[in-house]
């Protein structure tokens, strides 16, 4: 192979890599993303009751969406971990939930301890069946949840 031939080949190869680096993401982008794994109303098994210790706030996911599972003396309560202020994900901190974005604090039952959030975290219907926690659809007990927030669960 001549030096010129090699350089032409090299330029071609590098050009193909550069082109591939653009074409591959674009093709992947145009392929529609899969629909959300769990539609509203679908019941999801999030694991055995034993994985949610009593008196503790446990983070979990329902259909890819973050939730908080509480076990108060065997009664399982599940509510969304999506902060009602601007949609960040609140994390358990002791007996409270703290939102990392703007410092909203929720109690262990999902009510607002202090803002900026004003609305409580919405509940999912949940029951224990055969030792497993089954989580159903989320319910918005108040009409005042904004559209963007409800959209998080669509």
């Amino acid at each position, binding site marked *: 192979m001549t030096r010129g031939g090699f350089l032409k080949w090299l330029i071609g190869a590098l050009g193909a890599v550069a082109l591939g680096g653009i074409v591959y*993401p*674009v093709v*992947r*982008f*145009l392929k*529609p*993303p899969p629909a959300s794994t769990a539609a509203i109303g679908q019941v999801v098994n999030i694991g055995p009751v034993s994985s949610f210790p009593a008196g503790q706030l446990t983070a979990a996911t329902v259909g890819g969406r973050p939730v908080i599972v509480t076990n108060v003396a065997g009664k399982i309560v599940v509510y969304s971990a999506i902060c009602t202020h601007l949609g960040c994900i609140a994390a358990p901190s002791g007996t409270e939930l703290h939102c990392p974005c703007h410092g909203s604090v929720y109690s262990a039952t999902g009510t607002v301890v202090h803002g900026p959030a004003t609305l409580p975290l919405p509940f999912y219907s949940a029951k224990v069946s055969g030792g497993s926690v089954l989580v159903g659809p989320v319910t918005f007990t108040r009409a005042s949840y904004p*559209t*963007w927030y409800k*959209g998080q669960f669509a």
Partner: protein
Amino acid sequence: MSVDTVEPQGGDVNPPDAAQPAPTHGRMPGALAWVANRLGMEELMEDQYNRIVPIHATNYIYCFGGIAFILFLILVVTGILLVVYYQPTPDAAYQSVVNISTNVAFGWWVRSIHKWAATGMVILVFVHLLRVFFTSAYKRPRELNWISGVVLLMVTMAFGFTGYLLPWDQKAYWATRVGTDIAGSTPFIGHFLLVSLRGGENITGATLGRFFTLHVLVLPVVIVVFLGAHFWMIRRHGISGRL
């Protein structure tokens, strides 16, 4: 080197020999040369190939306009991709943007490139303006280049302003509120401008629709027309002389 002498800067700077076949054949792969021949583009392209870039214009400060144009091309491509998933209605706009950034494969990548290329284009267009101003490149016979360039700056800003509303979040809402309020403070025609931009007294879905239309239909046509004129006049008058 004086202004009048031109040193060869590489490439084919010899005058084309009429007896020789058009040298485009040597420069283009076969298929491309075939298409160029059928379209009669050889003479046109030969003229482009034989243009000599003066040595003073190879300084990087002469690249700002070109970089701004490259960013514009990137914005066209990423913008077309974004509009595949974007939905310009008040109920769906924010969710569709969140969907692009979180669910769509490489959506965050495309959206980030669009955002940063837009920011970069505003900066580069302005820096290009400074270069033209400080090298006196706006003077005769390039006055219309300057004027079309100012229009292009305004169109770029209009692109930025209309695009800023499209995510339909709090920042978008308040930026548009402030921006259209400023337009509303214009003497005599202020109120007309305000309601024309907003599609009513307040910022509603009508505002979103109008800004979306401006951003993806009206402004692209305007910028292409003015870019065409801008580039044609550069070809016609050449790059301005040295300082």
